[in-house]
């Protein structure tokens, strides 16, 4: 019995719902939600430590033994992501607190942010296919509301497209679940893995796996990313940072779970397709990132490139590459949150949405400028920062698997990332200042602080690799050995 496992999901829900009663008091809303996420973060770190010491933990809801009931299963991979996600949510919430968007705060901004985090954490922890669907929907419903909160025209029209595309992908998800249940008669991930292994993954199951590949690709923005730039561009800063950091990563998490735990018997089909999709994603993302001059579009296409890059690790399917992907996933959650916070801050300060409309911001806001440079270096995978380790390991793994084209495209895409963001930096931060000192909008310390913390984290994660590496090694070890997960998720001691 590990009731502690349910807290990363239930605590945000309880507080989020309680906050509905404090609509008139924004200060309670602000600080309660930040405090909740701090508590969730600490709890998830504690669980992670426990997982490292005691192995995979499991909670049976209502004491229904698996495979009959709903279970939460915590392995190192899931807990690493829960911890990172909670950390980023703390900082995004802090940013929202200091951004003081009172119109949105009055319409339950914080409760829905908390529900979103609850859905994300639930999706990471669940050990059951249908519960994964439910957690996705909790997350998506919260994201629909956040997407349209504020009711600007652009938000509404983009929101309709976003909802429509997600309804469609949820439909495919249910379709996949129906087929899976029809063929295998269970929805518990561990038992599914056992039964697929017994059947040796015949063509029918491979087809079903492709169905799930489509579903999660839509959520993650792998190839099917056409909805992503428009939607993310219509959001307020803190929300867009949280979306960029978390929503696509849940799709990536699901892809990793599915194609390491369930459908790993036919890598020549499924993993080749994933590799091809990763290539298309990286090429398309790179083109988008250099084609646009709109800041939020460039940032959104950078999200797309990163998704492709992480999936290179899955396509290579060996320990090193998976380790690299996990590193990169953690790095990307942190640094994409940071990138979107910075882009939002820059747009707020300069009042311009395109990069050639402003210049010389570094004279006005020196600290912001240097943080932006750190972000770029980290995203490009320059050594002391956190992107480097992931890129290196993914590269080694992909070369080890003989995926030369994949490796080449992956590292070319890094150049495009660097180029697209340096272009913003050189245009907007370098040169003659376009904002006079007396017209300068003051940058509140509260808005800068979350960015500073995230920048410090990405530097710290790069320098302090040794602290994280045992966790990542353990996570990759479980991912590459499905029987460990099955043992942890099904044993009845």
């Amino acid at each position: 019995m590990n009731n502690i496992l349910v807290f990363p999901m239930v605590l945000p829900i309880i507080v989020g719902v309680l906050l509905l009663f404090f609509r008139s008091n924004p200060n309670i809303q602000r600080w309660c939600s930040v405090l909740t996420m701090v508590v969730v973060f600490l709890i998830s770190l504690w669980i992670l430590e426990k997982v490292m010491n005691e192995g995979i933990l499991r909670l049976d809801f209502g004491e229904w033994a698996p495979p009959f009931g709903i279970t939460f299963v915590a392995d190192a991979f899931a807990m690493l992501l829960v911890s990172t996600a909670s950390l980023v949510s703390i900082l995004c919430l802090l940013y929202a607190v200091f951004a003081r968007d009172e119109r949105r705060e009055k319409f339950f901004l914080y409760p829905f942010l908390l529900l979103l985090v609850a859905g994300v954490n639930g999706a990471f922890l669940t050990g059951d296919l249908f519960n994964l669907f439910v957690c996705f929907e909790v997350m998506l419903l919260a994201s629909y509301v956040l997407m349209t909160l504020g009711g600007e025209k652009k938000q509404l029209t983009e929101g309709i497209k976003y909802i429509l595309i997600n309804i469609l992908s949820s439909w495919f998800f249910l379709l996949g679940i129906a087929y899976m249940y029809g063929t295998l008669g269970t929805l518990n991930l561990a038992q599914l893995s056992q039964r697929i292994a017994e059947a040796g993954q015949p063509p029918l199951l491979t087809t079903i796996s492709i169905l799930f590949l489509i579903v999660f690709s839509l959520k993650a923005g792998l190839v099917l990313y056409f909805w992503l730039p428009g939607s993310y561009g219509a959001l307020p800063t803190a929300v867009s940072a949280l979306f960029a950091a978390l929503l696509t990563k849940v799709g990536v998490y699901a892809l990793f779970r599915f194609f390491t735990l369930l459908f790993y018997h036919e890598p020549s089909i499924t993993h080749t397709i994933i590799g091809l999709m990763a290539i298309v994603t990286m090429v398309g993302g790179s083109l988008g990132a250099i084609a646009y001059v709109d800041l939020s579009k460039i940032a959104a296409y950078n999200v797309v490139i990163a998704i492709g890059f992480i999936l290179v690790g899955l396509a290579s399917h060996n320990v090193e590459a998976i380790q690299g992907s996990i590193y990169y996933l953690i790095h990307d959650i942190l640094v994409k949150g940071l990138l979107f916070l910075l882009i939002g801050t820059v747009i707020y300060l300069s009042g311009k949405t395109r990069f050639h409309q402003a210049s010389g911001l570094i004279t006005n806001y020196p600290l912001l400028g240097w943080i932006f440079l750190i972000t770029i270096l980290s995203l490009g995978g320059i050594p002391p920062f956190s992107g480097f380790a992931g890129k290196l390991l993914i590269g080694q793994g992909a070369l080890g698997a003989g995926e030369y084209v994949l490796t080449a495209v992956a590292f070319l895409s890094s150049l495009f990332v660097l180029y697209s963001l340096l272009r913003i930096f050189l245009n907007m931060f370098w040169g003659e200042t376009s904002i006079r000192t007396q017209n300068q909008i003051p940058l509140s310390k509260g808005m800068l602080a979350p960015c500073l913390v995230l920048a410090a984290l990405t530097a710290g994660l790069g320098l302090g690799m040794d602290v994280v590496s045992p966790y990542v090694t353990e996570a990759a070890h479980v991912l590459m050995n499905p029987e460990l997960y099955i043992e942890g998720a099904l044993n009845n001691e």
Partner: protein
Amino acid sequence: MRENDVILQTVSKVAVFIILTFGVYLFLAGHHNPGGGFIGGLTLSSAFVLLYLAFDVETVNAGIPMDYKMVAATGVLISVFSGMGALLFGSAFLSQTFAYFDLPIFGKTELATVVLFESGIALGVVGVVVTIMISISEDV
């Protein structure tokens, strides 16, 4: 604004109570027979919707001064806390139990903790459905 709706109003005055009773019956029946929190809640909320249809929003709001968003929130809280209650007894989250009691009037009665959970669901459904109906109809 609208045509003569005496018949609708007169009928709904009676029908609302029948629907409410049926809703409560369905809610309680859910333990062993078809029914339960969700279905009971939907039936209950249909009574409220009927009221809003027959009379206008202002009249009903004056008669039943409730914020349905808060009803929904209360419902969710009751459900979650009934799940958390199991933690106090050292059981897993969402564990339920039941026992038989000899009550004065009812005789031997089965009391189950799942009723708490279900009542939360019912409140949640009522709150959400009525909120949706009001927010769609508000500014027509």
